[in-house]
């Protein structure tokens, strides 16, 4: 409501000046119009007065002139009184003024002469009863007076008013002024009269009236009795006939007033020519003026009017001009006001815009700064400005400056800030500080009201104005919350500290590593040196020698392991390690790993279980060496960190991926000491080892897992670890490998006459897996999950005449174990079939029993076709060939040969012949390769080298020499036999000279080879 009122007021305030201006202008204009009117009327009055005077004067002079003229006529005319009739003299006079001149004889007979017709008429003017019977002019004329009178014309044609001038004529004899003979009357025609009074103003005819006054009283005191209209310019004919009283339309008072006014003028008519101004209505003015005339008995009065229409027109014109002027003025004023308003608007808009900008700036600033406080140092006051209020609601918005300082220092959390600000904000101090600079900044920590966290604030003091001496007079305090910035700053400091700590940690880790390394390296080194010293002293005690040298060897091996790790790590760190891809058999990988892990497991009396699932292939393309390294590392750790009697599960599972890639998962799970979550974070970092009581006793470089992780990365695989302290650890490694497809042509089975197989295992998965592999290898395969059903199946097959050729039996089965099952099956199958035990466990302890039960061979799980074939060829050649079994008859049984032979057919033949005799071989395709293979093999790997002599790159003799020159113990002792087609003596001699032990003639036959080996062995023993 109030706002509505306000609005109304506002509108009123806005328009009031305009209304006032318009009212003033209107009033002025009205006054102007009235004045105009008055002025025009006045001017016109003056004008009409003057004109009336002139008209009166003209009438007067005309009359005077007429009178003079008639008097001249009178002088010329000497009527003969004796003779009646129109005087002759008069007939001769031709007056231009008068229409005609009548003669009235003294007797009162008026004569009239018509010049054109020359007729004389006469009539008596004397009537009884009227003014003594005589007309006034006759009476006056007889008295010698000259005058004027009006009369009604007695023309026959029309009755009209005529103006007559009369003057006496005198008798001839008596001369001048002598005796009146009669009166002559000069008659003006009406037209002449009208001429007198016709007047026009600005083209508009003006009404002019000629009045004659009837006077009473004597000459000295004559009173106007009546005013009679003689002639009016606008009179109609009828009106002319009557005397028209001027006062007829007036009230009595008006008439009396007019009469008295006219009387006044009349009385002064000889002293002044003043007339009487007379108004009719608003616009019409009229003027009375006496006609100056001495000859007139009745004084004449001329009334002339100014035309109202002209006055109105003039007034209108002037008013129009005034209006135009006024409008022009208003327009000019309006324009002026408009421009004023426009400029005012623009000015205001500019100010408003600026204000908006300023408001924005202020708003923005208030967002940045919480508080603005204006301080006048001279007056020692403060005031919160820019719509900011004190944080403390009780604190006054303005007051004494000292109070403000106190409020600031009170808000400080730290005493240091309190003291500092208390000092710095003092007026004298501020003045001094602000002398050099425009602003000051203070950072401090304020305790937040109600909040638990203090906030950082920055107080900026800006100098607003200075006095004449340059001392700060007015200042602005702007307070800003800089907690975020400060926190960021503190955070950054923290990050830097953290980074520094990390760098120090890394450095320390390296230092620790170095010191550990020094310790780890020094320990076996000390052992080597210590035992070699002991060895030296105990050279004569063979058992001691054996013991010490074994210890030296073991320490050396350990040292070598450490150094290999360090070298591997440095290779990995410098990115120099590469994968060496080749086809490898999974069975070999597992064999190798098992051969390394099993002794460790045994030593710690742990359980080691190997599980395989869904293995479809046994040969893959990959880096077997590195894969072995990875799995060995993980398994060794599992063994190391699992207490005695613990269990380690090693699971291999394969999953087909897109294309012909398989994902091989290797899972190593133990129930050992486990690892803490903290250690899991750094498990793959180099030089990190879990450190506690238990691990302190475990040797290691701390590089194993780092190497493992890097190798897995290199292979594009993943490693995942789950562990809990005290519960155990589970490592899962995923590696994607491409299987190598070997199409089994079935030749092997044909060679050994094998067609039908049976698998007996209580685990159905194993049965399925093995039969699948067998079928894939073109064999027929069935399976049973227990001994009894196996027996049934075998019986059935024998009955059908298609007995199984080989039966694979799991060692550990419920109800009936593998050995018992084998015994029963052997009874049914007879000697023809082969019975294999398939087991994941050590079989040494039951070997004898198994042999008695008729078991031909043991195979370790997991089942692989390659291992299966190997086993078959081993037992079958043993069976089929005389003396192929080990012992005196077959000295090469179980031997591993290194065969250097460049021709493929020859090398294939020799390797197969060796296999037939239970020996195996590696093939080198030239001498150089043979040297390389030997030098990189572990000590004692090869039992003998068969060296072709004629070979490209490096021949057999050179190769033998090179091998003998190798800096290793067995280089001197390894048996080397030359193979040559020429049994020439110098060939043999050259071979022996090259360091070879024997010479075998080509083509190599098993008999010769066996004989040679036997003799060489004999020589060696001797």
């Amino acid at each position, binding site marked *: 409501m109030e706002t509505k009122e306000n609005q109304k007021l506002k509108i009123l305030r806005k328009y009031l000046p305009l209304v006032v201006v318009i009212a003033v202008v209107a009033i002025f204009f009205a006054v102007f119009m009235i004045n105009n009117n008055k002025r025009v009327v006045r001017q016109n009055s003056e004008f009409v007065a003057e004109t009336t005077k002139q008209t009166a004067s003209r009438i007067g002079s005309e009359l005077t002139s007429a009178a003079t003229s008639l008097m001249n006529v009178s002088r010329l005319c000497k009527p003969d009184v004796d003779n009646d009739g129109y005087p002759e003299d008069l007939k001769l006079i031709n007056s231009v003024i008068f229409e005609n001149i009548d003669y009235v004889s003294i007797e009162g007979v008026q004569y009239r002469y018509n010049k054109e017709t020359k007729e004389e008429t006469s009539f008596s003017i004397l009537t009884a009863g009227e003014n003594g019977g005589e007309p006034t002019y006759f009476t006056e004329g007889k008295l010698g007076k000259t005058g004027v009178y009006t009369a009604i014309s007695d023309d026959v044609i029309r009755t009209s008013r005529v103006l007559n001038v009369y003057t006496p004529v005198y008798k001839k004899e008596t001369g001048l002024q002598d005796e009146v003979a009669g009166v002559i009357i000069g008659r003006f025609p009406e037209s002449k009269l009208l001429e007198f009074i016709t007047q026009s103003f600005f083209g508009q005819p003006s009404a002019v009236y000629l009045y004659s006054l009837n006077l009473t009283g004597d000459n000295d005191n004559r009173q106007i009795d009546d005013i009679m209209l003689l002639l009016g310019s606008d009179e109609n004919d009828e009106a002319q006939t009557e005397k028209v009283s001027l006062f007829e339309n007036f009230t009595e008072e008006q008439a009396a007033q007019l009469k008295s006014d006219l009387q006044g003028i009349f009385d002064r008519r000889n002293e002044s020519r003043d007339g009487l101004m007379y108004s009719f209505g608003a616009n019409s003015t009229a003027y009375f003026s006496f006609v100056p005339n001495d000859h007139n008995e009745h004084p004449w009065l001329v009334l002339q009017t100014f035309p109202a229409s002209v006055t109105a027109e003039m007034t209108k014109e002037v008013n129009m001009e005034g209006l135009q002027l006024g409008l022009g003025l208003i327009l000019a004023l309006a324009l002026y006001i408009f421009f004023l308003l426009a400029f005012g608007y623009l000015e205001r808009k500019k100010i408003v815009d600026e204000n908006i900008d300023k408001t924005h700036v202020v708003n923005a600033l208030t967002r940045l700064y919480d508080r603005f406080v204006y301080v006048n140092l001279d007056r020692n006051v403060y005031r919160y400005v820019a719509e900011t209020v004190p944080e403390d609601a009780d604190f006054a918005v303005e007051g004494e400056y000292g109070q403000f300082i106190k409020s600031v220092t009170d808000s400080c959390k730290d005493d240091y800030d309190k003291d500092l600000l208390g000092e710095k904000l003092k007026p004298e101090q501020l003045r001094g500080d602000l002398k050099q600079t425009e602003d000051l900044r203070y950072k401090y920590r304020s305790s937040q009201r109600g909040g638990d966290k203090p906030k950082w604030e920055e107080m900026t003091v800006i100098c607003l104005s200075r006095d004449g001496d340059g001392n700060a007079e007015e200042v602005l305090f702007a307070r800003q919350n800089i907690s975020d910035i400060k926190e960021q700053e503190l955070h950054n400091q923290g990050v830097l500290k953290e980074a520094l700590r990390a760098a120090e940690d890394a450095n320390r880790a390296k230092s620790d590593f170095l010191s550990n390394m020094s310790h780890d390296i020094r320990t076996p080194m000390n052992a080597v040196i210590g035992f070699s010293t002991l060895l030296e002293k105990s050279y004569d005690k063979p058992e001691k020698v054996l013991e010490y040298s074994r210890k030296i060897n073991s320490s050396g091996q350990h040292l070598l392991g450490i150094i290999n790790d360090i070298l591997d790590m440095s290779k990995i760190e410098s990115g120099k390690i590469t994968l060496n891809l080749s086809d490898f058999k999974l069975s070999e990988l597992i064999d190798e790993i098992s051969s390394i892990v099993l002794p460790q497991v045994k030593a710690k009396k742990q359980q080691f279980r190997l599980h395989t699932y869904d293995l479809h292939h046994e040969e893959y393309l990959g880096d077997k060496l590195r894969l072995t390294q990875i799995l060995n590392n993980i398994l060794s750790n599992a063994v190391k960190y699992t207490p005695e009697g613990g269990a380690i599960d090693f699971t291999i599972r394969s999953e087909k991926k897109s294309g012909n890639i398989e994902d091989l998962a290797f899972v190593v799970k133990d129930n050992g000491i486990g690892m803490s979550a903290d250690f899991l974070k750094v498990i793959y970092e180099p030089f990190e080892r879990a450190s506690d009581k238990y691990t302190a006793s475990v040797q290691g470089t701390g590089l194993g897992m780092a190497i493992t992780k890097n190798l897995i990365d290199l292979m594009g695989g993943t490693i995942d670890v789950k562990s809990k302290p005290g519960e155990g650890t589970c490592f899962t490694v995923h590696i994607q490998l491409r299987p190598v497809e070997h199409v089994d042509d079935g030749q092997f089975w044909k060679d050994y006459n094998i067609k039908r197989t049976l698998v007996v295992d209580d685990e159905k998965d194993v049965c399925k897996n093995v039969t699948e592999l067998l079928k894939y290898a073109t064999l027929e395969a069935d399976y049973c999950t227990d001994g009894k059903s196996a027996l049934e199946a075998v019986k059935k097959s024998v009955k059908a005449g298609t007995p199984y050729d080989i039966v694979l039996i799991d060692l550990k089965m419920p109800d009936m174990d593998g050995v018992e099952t084998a015994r029963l099956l052997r009874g049914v199958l007879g000697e023809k079939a082969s019975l294999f035990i398939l087991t994941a466990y050590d079989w040494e302890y039951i070997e004898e029993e198994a042999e008695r039960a008729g078991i031909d061979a043991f195979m370790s799980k997991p089942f692989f076709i390659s291992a299966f074939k190997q086993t078959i060829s081993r037992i079958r050649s043993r069976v089929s060939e005389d003396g192929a079994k080990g012992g005196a008859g077959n000295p090469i049984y179980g031997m591993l040969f290194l065969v250097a032979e*460049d*021709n493929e057919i020859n090398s294939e033949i020799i390797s197969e012949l060796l296999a037939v005799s239970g020996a195996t071989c590696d093939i080198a395709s030239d001498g150089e390769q043979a040297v390389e293979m030997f030098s990189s093999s572990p000590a004692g790997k090869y039992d003998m080298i068969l060296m072709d002599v004629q070979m490209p790159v490096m021949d057999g003799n050179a190769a033998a020499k090179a091998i003998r020159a190798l800096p290793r113990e067995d280089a001197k002792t390894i048996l080397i036999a030359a193979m040559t087609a020429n049994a020439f003596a110098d060939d043999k001699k050259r071979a022996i000279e090259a360091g070879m032990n024997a010479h075998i003639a080509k083509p190599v036959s098993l008999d010769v080879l066996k004989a040679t080996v036997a003799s060489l062995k004999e020589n060696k023993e001797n």
Partner: protein
Amino acid sequence: MTVRQLYDKVGGDYENTLARFLTEERMVRFALKFPADQSYALLKNSLESGDMKEAFRGAHTLKGVCQNLGFTALYEPAHRVTEDLRAGNQVKEEDLRELEERYKELLDALRAFGESNA
């Protein structure tokens, strides 16, 4: 065709070869690998290009393989050529011709045997 018939046909040493190889199957398996052996080609090409060292190696290997497989008929000229080359002598034309003839005979026989036993 039996293995013995094959060996008789190409002038091979059936008895001794079987003694070393133990089974006929093995004999045949290796015999059938002979056509793929590149020794003869090495000899021929090296002789043509005049590389006597490589020609010797080719001849020597050919001789060795023939000996190993018991192909005596081919072994003989191969042996003579090898010895000539080892001694740095000019290889005899008739030896080369014989070598070539026997080599072709052997290959034909092996092919025929392979086809008949396929």
